[in-house]
């Protein structure tokens, strides 16, 4: 006996879109389990545009976008349970929950994991120095500024130059915080134009090709030490450090349970329907991989909702036979999905998503047992997304596992 048809863990854009899609597809008992006091996910604390273009055809700030997602899910009849933390995901769709009234179990016919991404904290970056107050990720800073109206410092440095680092600048400005510098290890800003101009416009000194080597201070941050490409050491006085980006899926439930995790993405291993190693579980949104926009995660969630509805109706192919897809090149971070089910059904993710770790200019090739089965030219910069059509690989691999890599141009 199941308590619900589908339980969705996480009420961000992906989870809410999946829930709404399930309701539209006629699935009856759909619940979203959200551990925060409000659903909406990360956009709740992104107090800036642009959100909502794809979903609502309007330019919204994160919080109003989040509120709209919540109300449209509720209108669709989704049961959103906030302050509900899923602490264990057990075989067959059995969940252990902590709710304000106590610990309970919930049995679902299908579970969708939509727990999103977070940034890598100081510890996992192994940054040298004493453990001082004032070192935060962008997410924590945004929550402080937009949700609890506070600021932890006034003159921080920002580490990283992915898009989120520019959100950090906006967040700082909103809170009257004046970042003193932006530090990027690569020679170029990661986020693409026009962002690259932005720090200068905002009066933030940009240090590219510089690595944060140490955080200084006694009990609070007093400065940081940088090393540039030539090995020159310099010091910047500041009272805080914003560690931005280096996203990692919030996949604790999969990792500490029975579900297989892909070390390359840090998220669960899935097939082209987002189905995990236990086929009662699916995943969608940014928990699949670091990192896409809210709009992307929302679309993905909607599609996953439809696939799960099909699965409940017995219309998805079995998980086997399948082939593994992996990356075999340090310039490629990951490939999602990690499994491709070989079947007549050409539904599911249209594309395999790859991400490039550093600037590449060559040919992206797919190999089976060392034999090239597919290839195309590739020119891309760090953190850029690359899509490869799932069916091209599925039909070329002849039932063998696939490894993707980059071969240098051969003029």
């Amino acid at each position, binding site marked *: 006996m199941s308590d619900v048809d589908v339980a969705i863990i996480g009420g961000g854009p992906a989870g809410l879109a999946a829930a709404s899609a399930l309701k539209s597809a006629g699935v009856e008992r759909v619940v979203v389990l959200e*551990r925060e*006091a409000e659903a909406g996910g990360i956009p709740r*604390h992104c107090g800036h545009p642009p959100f909502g273009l794809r979903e609502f055809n309007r330019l919204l700030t994160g919080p109003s976008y989040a509120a709209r997602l919540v109300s449209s899910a509720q209108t669709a009849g989704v049961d959103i349970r906030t*302050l509900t*933390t899923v*602490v264990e995901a057990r075989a067959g769709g059995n969940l252990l929950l*902590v709710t*304000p*009234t*106590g*610990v309970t179990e919930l049995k679902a016919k299908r579970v969708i994991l939509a727990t999103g991404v*977070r*940034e890598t*904290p*100081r*510890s*996992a970056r*192994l*940054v*040298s*120095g*004493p*453990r001082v*107050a004032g070192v*935060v*990720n962008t*997410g*924590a800073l945004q*929550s*402080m*500024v937009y*949700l*609890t*109206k*506070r*600021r*932890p410092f006034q003159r921080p440095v920002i580490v990283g130059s992915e898009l989120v680092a520019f959100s950090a600048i906006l967040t700082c400005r909103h*809170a*009257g915080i004046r970042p003193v510098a932006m530090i990027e290890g690569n020679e170029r800003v990661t986020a693409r134009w026009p962002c690259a101009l932005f720090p200068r416009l905002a009066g933030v000194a940009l240090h590219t090709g510089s690595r944060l*080597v*140490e955080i200084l201070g*006694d*009990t*609070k941050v007093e400065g940081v030490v940088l090393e540039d490409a030539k090995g020159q050491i310099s010091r910047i006085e500041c009272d805080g450090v914003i560690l931005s980006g280096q996203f*990692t899926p*919030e996949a*604790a439930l999969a*990792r*500490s349970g029975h579900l297989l*995790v892909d*070390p390359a993405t*840090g998220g669960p291993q899935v097939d082209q329907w987002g189905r995990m190693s236990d086929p009662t579980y699916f995943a969608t949104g940014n928990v699949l991989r670091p990192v896409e926009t809210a709009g992307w995660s929302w679309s993905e969630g909607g599609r996953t909702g439809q696939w799960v509805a099909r699965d409940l109706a017995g219309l998805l192919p079995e998980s086997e036979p399948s082939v593994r897809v992996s990356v075999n090149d340090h310039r490629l971070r990951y490939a999602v999905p990690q499994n491709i089910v070989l079947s007549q059904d050409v539904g599911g993710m249209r594309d395999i998503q790859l991400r490039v770790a550093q600037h590449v200019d060559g040919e992206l090739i797919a190999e089976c047992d060392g034999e090239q089965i597919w290839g195309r030219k590739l020119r891309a910069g760090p953190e850029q997304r690359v899509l490869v059509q799932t069916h091209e690989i599925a039909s070329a691999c002849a039932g063998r596992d696939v490894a993707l890599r980059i071969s240098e141009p051969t003029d």
Partner: protein
Amino acid sequence: MDQSLFDVVVVGAGVVGCAVARRFTLEGARIAVLEKSTDILDGASKANSAILHTGFDAPEGSLELACIRDGYAEYQTIRDSLGLVQDNAGAYVVAWTQDELRNLESIKAKAHLNGVTDVELVDAETLRAREPNLSRNALGAVHVPGESLIDPWSAPHVYLRQAMENGAKVFTSCEVTDGGFDGAEWRVVTTNGTLRTRHVINCAGLYGDTVNRALLGETHFEVKPRKGQFVVFDKAASGLVSAIILPVPSETTKGIVVFRTVFGNLAVGPTAEEQDSRTDASTDEETLKALIADGINKVPALKDMPVTATYAGLRPASEQKEYRISATSEQNWITVGGIRSTGLSGALGIARHVYGLYENMGASHDKLPDPVIPKANMLSEAGLRDWKQDGAGEVVCHCELVTRREIEAALHGPLPARSLAGLKRQTRATMGRCQGFYCSARLAELTDGCFVSAMAEKLPHE
């Protein structure tokens, strides 16, 4: 400050001071504990490996060995009533080279001499069967079944609470700076005022020599801080080993250990780095990378495990290996110094030993007939954590499942947390995977007005 005459002032609320405070209170002495930090356990005791040692490898015939043996035994007797945890993980001293393999026999012999008689040798095959994730390079081991894992903060915390609930006074943010003895009474000068006491027990850890110099005018030892860095892996890694994996020790250090924690993590460390600073517990990237590599060498599956936390602790070592405990009877003074690397295990035994020294000075009291027995914070993953109990309400720290009720208890309880570090030790908030990504903002709000130095200030224009 309280102007009545105390029997004993304990300087420092590290694990040693907490255990001493408890012992003296239970024996009937009227005591005050003076701690310079905003929170207790903020010195050497803030970061260690959290292993309750049996003493199998302690120097033969040493005071350290005696204290560890007594401490271990007392921990067994008070554990259940105080609600303390003990994970009987056991340990393997693993030989990775032929030389080390030849050493195992003598390690076993020493353990037996030290009274730890259940220690035995195991061959590579048995070791592999019991620890299947250990590298194939393990050649054999000494099994020490009694080595255990405990909660390094909740234990001393409840020792001190037991002292308080039976009458001891605790003053935090109160640094002892000076003092004088008139032949019968000490006047102890602190940053918060002056106290009167018959006896002083110096448990100042990393500042043991400094406090001796400031109040006694001399010191019989010098503190030589020795840093130990650690890497903590994701909780998913904790299933990779069941026992504590010790190396064959060298002359100077116990070496790098792979161990689980009662909080459900797996950690690798500590290093042993001599330094002058008594406060600088920095970690550095190079050392952390070396620790990770060492961990992967021993437990190859750590390769795919994310790092959750990194930290460092400072051992209050001295010029000698032995504890530097001494009584200066003429001045009603006892120094409990140089409790270098086994203080968590030895604390209860040290406290008994120190009480003996105190009686030798001619002091005596009537034991408390019916002492209050408080319950320790339950932060162990396997224990009955607050989130598992009804009415816990909101979960604030999602990674460590810390409830709002626990946070409020720590902020408003008998030993109120006055810094984020203190709150962490009482609740584990922000100590998990995300290190505060999700809950810092909520914590800043909940701790408003509680911390000596606030996590964040209110926005000026809101």
